């Protein structure tokens, strides 16, 4: 009995250490050597993959003296955190609303704000699958349509907006399978359970199991703008500006596009 307890305790300690170390490694991913500046980026969750996997490593290569520490969450939550005085240097939002609010509150320097990216709303189907639906307008041909729940998922809200503008929402109401998150929607479409689905372009790009059928027609849905800006109270103004410049660069643009974003030429 005693031996068992000792073993169990050892196991627990080992496991906690491993877990502790791993999460540390995660958030310290960008930390390399000492004698450098660290800046904090607060970015919308939908930007996480592209920053963590590609942009931040690339930036590190180019500017090893600047370490980027990033935190990802819903734009609303990040806005609240900055308002509470969180130590953030650069804010990259998934919507203008949050950025404007911070600018008006004097928390983000207006001159640094750039409407860098656009995300699009797209119609998808399972890769290699056949479908009678080739555009938003012909969505009625589908038997089942997967979208995020408009009441809780932003992408779902935009899907509803687009279809409503096209007059196709109510007529297809009994075909919608409402996902509680985007991953669920993607899986439904990838498995062919739902004939088609509507998600962000960036969501579609994140998996090769679905392919884009069409983009939401012009004007059917408002622009989904991803602005970036510098937090006024930053103590690393120089480093922040270098980072912002990098984000606006050609190289960064290519990466953003690879992840499904539309990079705005007007910078």
């Amino acid at each position, binding site marked *: 009995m005693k031996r068992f307890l000792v073993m169990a305790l050892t196991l627990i300690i080992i496991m906690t250490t491993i877990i502790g170390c791993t999460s540390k490694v995660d958030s310290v991913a960008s930390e390399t050597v000492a004698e450098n500046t660290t800046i904090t980026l607060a970015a919308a969750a939908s930007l996480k993959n592209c920053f963590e996997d590609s942009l931040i490593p690339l930036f590190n290569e180019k500017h090893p003296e600047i370490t980027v520490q990033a935190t990802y969450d819903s734009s609303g939550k990040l806005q609240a955190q900055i308002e509470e005085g969180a130590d953030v240097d650069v804010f990259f939002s998934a919507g203008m609303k949050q950025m404007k609010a911070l600018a008006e509150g004097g928390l983000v320097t207006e001159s640094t704000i750039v409407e860098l990216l656009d995300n699009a709303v797209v119609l998808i189907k399972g890769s290699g699958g056949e479908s009678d639906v080739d555009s938003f307008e012909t969505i009625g041909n589908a038997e089942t349509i*997967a979208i995020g*729940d408009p009441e809780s998922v932003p992408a779902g809200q935009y899907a509803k907006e687009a279809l409503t503008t096209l007059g196709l929402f109510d007529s297809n109401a009994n*075909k919608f399978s409402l996902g509680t998150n985007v991953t669920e929607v993607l899986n439904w479409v990838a498995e062919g*359970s739902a004939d088609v689905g509507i998600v962000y372009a960036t969501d579609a790009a994140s998996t090769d199991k679905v392919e884009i059928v069409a983009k939401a027609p012009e004007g059917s849905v408002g622009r989904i703008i991803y602005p970036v800006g510098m937090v006024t109270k930053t103590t690393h103004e120089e480093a922040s500006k270098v980072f912002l410049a990098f984000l606006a660069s050609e190289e960064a643009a290519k990466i953003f596009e690879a992840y499904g974003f539309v990079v705005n030429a007007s910078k």
Partner: protein
Amino acid sequence: MSFSPILISLKTASLAILITFILGIFTAYIVVSIKSKGLKMVIDGILTMPLVLPPTVIGFMLLAIFGVNRPIGRLLLDFLGVKIVFSWTATVIAAIVISFPLMYRAARGAFEQVDETLIMAARTIGLNEWKIFWKIMMPLALPGVLSGGILSFARGLGEFGATAMIAGNIAGKTQTLPMAIYSEVAAGNMETARGYVWVVLTLSFFVVVSMNYFSVKRFDKSKSNASERLMEGEEWA
């Protein structure tokens, strides 16, 4: 608060329990009659699996069977024009798979509780196996079997994870109570969610009470052992 999820859940759970009830009793009786201990253990293990697997694993496996991109699903679609996924049928299938082990185990336990000598005696007085099942085994095992059925029904009613994966969340068609609750909470509609939650609570309470009622009934009838009663000091005529 729309009644649709409630109705769908009730319809699903009702059809599911009908099928699970018969299937569970049937398989339990077969397993009980298996003579080889090893084989019995293996089969019992397989049949009990859905009980211990996370619902998402079960959903994954059901998808592997019925998904339109998979062999069987594809076959069904091409030859019979039948698409199981995202249909109401899928909710029933998920409920059956999830609740089956409960029914099976309850039935098996109930059958094994029946005094073996009663079955032996039944054979010596000429009753065939069918008669033994209907006239001896079932009546004596009934309380346990019914409890199992009720529990199974409730489990089928509460199924969520696997259902979401193969039936989707289509209001009016496959949106069951648990899914409706989840969606409403995600959307922040606490009032609506609360309404649904009350429905689930009431149904569950009813289930537990019924089960207890039947369990109590069980004890009266199972004592067939005369010598047991002798020990309790009964009189002789």
